[in-house]
């Protein structure tokens, strides 16, 4: 029992369970089947959390190298803008082939923006927070240039599918997120990338002297983060069927960083946890949904969110846990440790 309690992800998981339980009681439909696919608050949460999961995945890898990527929100806006602009120029917006091609192109462009970030960090040697701040600020401007300051609306069935469609009764957006998680897990744990990443984040100097091409790995990680942010931007824009370069991905970098931290990856780099990040992202999304569901007044939602986050962070702080739980029952805890 204590080993479960001691697990870093215990408290985030517990809070998630509590929040979901609250939703079971407050929402009239938590999970049900309607028109042949799943429906309800839980499904809304899963679908809604897809963009954040995608962004947070990339952020996890970046943070593992000891970096940070503030530009993910802007990259979302750019990719949505590019996709919507190109789709709106299509003769037949419902043609599947061209739309897929456009999606691929938008992601490709996002990867290039990631390359830009990575180059600034690894090759030019600018501090990650500053290097990505450049694109964070400039990127939104680029997105507005692409859309010419307008909101571009699209009427494309295939495009809308990636946000609101269902495959085998499950939301496509969530499936995309699951696929992305699987891809990243394979990429980091089935190859040596995870080890080398953690090494670079743990000690860049020692890694260099061990012959690790830290620069190439760093650049690659920012490219992955860019690509995933681009994909998140497509889901966002497909959901509202338009490119909104002002609010797409606005402040999502902060939620993503929070998700990574809740998941147990330290901001100084090194060890990272994909499972933790996914849990963190879903938790943040659930929190947002719950706040609305329980009827917290709109002006108090941010404060409510802040309180939960503070509680969460405290529950994960070893010093705080020691103070609170250590004093309550030091003896049994000690004995249990010996028993292990």
């Amino acid at each position: 029992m204590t080993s479960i309690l001691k697990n870093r992800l215990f408290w985030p998981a517990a809070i998630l369970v509590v929040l979901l339980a609250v939703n079971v009681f407050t929402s009239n439909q938590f999970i049900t089947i309607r028109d042949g696919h799943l429906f309800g608050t839980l499904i809304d949460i899963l679908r809604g959390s897809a963009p954040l999961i995608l962004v947070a995945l990339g952020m996890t890898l970046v943070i593992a190298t000891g970096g940070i990527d503030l530009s993910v929100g802007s990259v979302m806006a750019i990719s949505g803008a590019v996709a919507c602009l190109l789709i709106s120029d299509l003769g037949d917006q419902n043609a599947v082939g061209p739309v897929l091609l456009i999606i691929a192109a938008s992601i490709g462009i996002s990867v290039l923006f990631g390359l830009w970030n990575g180059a600034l960090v690894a090759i030019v040697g600018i501090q990650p927070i500053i290097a990505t701040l450049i694109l964070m600020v400039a990127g939104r401007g680029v997105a507005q240039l692409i859309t010419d300051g307008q909101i571009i609306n699209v009427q494309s069935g295939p495009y809308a599918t990636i946000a609101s469609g269902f495959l085998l009764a499950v939301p496509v957006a969530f499936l995309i997120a699951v696929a992305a998680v699987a891809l990243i897990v394979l990429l980091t744990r089935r190859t040596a990338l995870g080890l080398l990443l953690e090494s670079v984040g743990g000690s860049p100097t020692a890694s260099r002297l061990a012959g690790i091409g830290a620069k190439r790995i760093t650049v690659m990680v920012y490219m992955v983060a860019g690509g995933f942010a681009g994909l998140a931007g497509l889901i966002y824009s497909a959901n509202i069927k338009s490119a909104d370069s002002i609010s797409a991905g606005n402040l999502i970098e902060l939620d993503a960083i929070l998700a990574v931290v809740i998941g147990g990856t330290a901001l100084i780099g090194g060890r990272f946890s994909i499972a933790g990040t996914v849990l963190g992202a879903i938790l943040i999304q659930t929190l947002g949904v719950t706040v609305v569901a329980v009827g917290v007044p709109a002006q108090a939602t941010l404060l409510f969110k802040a309180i939960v986050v503070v509680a969460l962070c405290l529950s994960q702080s070893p010093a705080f846990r020691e103070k609170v739980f250590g004093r309550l029952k030091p003896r049994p805890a000690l004995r249990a440790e010996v028993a292990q």
Partner: protein
Amino acid sequence: MAEQSPVLEMTGIRKVFPGVVALDGVDFRLYPGEIHALMGENGAGKSTLIKVLTGVYDIDGGDITLAGAPVRINGPLQAQQAGISTVYQEVNLCTNLSVAENIFIGREPRRFGRIQWGLMRRRAAELLARLDLDLDVSAPLSTYSLAIQQMVAIARAVDISARVLILDEPTSSLDTSEVAQLFAVMRRLKDEGVAILFVSHFLDQIYEVSDRLTVLRNGQLIGEYRTAALPQVQLVEKMIGKELAVLSDVEDEAQSSREKAAEASPVIEARGLGRSGAIAPFDLTIHAGEVVGLAGLLGSGRTELARLLFGADRADQGELSIDGRPVTLRSPQLAMKKGIAFSSENRRTEGIIGDLSVRENIILALQASRGWTRPIPRRRQDEIVEKYIKALQIRPADPERPVRNLSGGNQQKVLLARWLITEPRLLIIDEPTRGIDVGAKAEIQKLVAELSGGGMAVLFVSAELEEVLRLSHKIEVLRDRRLVEELENTDGVDADRIMQTIASGATS
């Protein structure tokens, strides 16, 4: 002096780190008005004892009395308040501030919250005059030499609290005249009744300045002696002790492979290789199966030379060839491809990755050379790691433990394992035995001898002359970032001979 009671008395001091007993029942006495040398090889427990005294470490057993009253030193500030001040090898001052500011930083004379600059300068000048130093107290500290900076640090230390002064290797980076100057200051303080604890690697200095000495070995007290009554040879015996038996084996092994090495082909050849500001151009050839030792003081360019051969820093002049073919080592990665391995002296910052496990640390270099797309299969990893944990006796023998939790000696073995599995042709090891316990040290030395016996070329960097002499076939002596002499390690070469070169430059 015998009738006087000690100002500081430590009895039965015990300090345990995971995996190693650093101090085991050590007694130590310090009388007012004496210079007391603390002796022992690296890893004997000197620095641990000092850290206990300065409150960096808490003791696991034993008592400390200061001026007759029992004390428990819980932190550096408390040590200072109790009258114990320390000056370390690396000067911990702000060189951009003035001399006076450095002396009074954090405790400036104030009136109504305003610093009284005039009073501060006057008091600084008085204090320095007491130590026979004539400095411009308003000049930035950086305008003075390292030796003077050290003395300013001493002035600051005695002004804060003058009962016990600890000088931890203060002379390691000073030249002869600067050492004399420092000793003059030490003697003056001694006459004023300050008890001085002095640590130095240089035996001559110990005999020149100290009254008594305490010898530690392997965390245990060997004895306390009057310096004048203990011949140097006996002191060295007491410091090295029973380790001698193991080491003579090592020496035999080194001897036998010496003949072989001379005939082998050169693995690496440097001609006029250099990097401005780091190391003057040098020539160096290392043959297969040869152990080349680098000797020299701290800052003499030992590490800088080693780093050039690994591509950790880029040479800006000269040529390097490996197996007779010219190469430019642009990065460690390239050097590794050419079969060169380098284990840095900064184990913690440039060696291990603390968060990662023993297994991950060991396979890191091999994995890096394979690239991320070709992971080493887990079963193969486990085999390799198990083999090396056994071969190098890494303790605890748990491959999944974070390497951070291992003792220094075991971390060093992990690093050696990391490089050995890459099967290098030239192994460069920088200070592999620094700060590790005697047992691990002998094992590492033995390993080096065995590796060279097996045909590996080894470049061995160490601050300890004895160790360099014991292992090397050829010794390169460095001084002031210049390779000044190459010595074949024959019977005629001993520590004195090398120290002479270090002290005075090449004898030619």
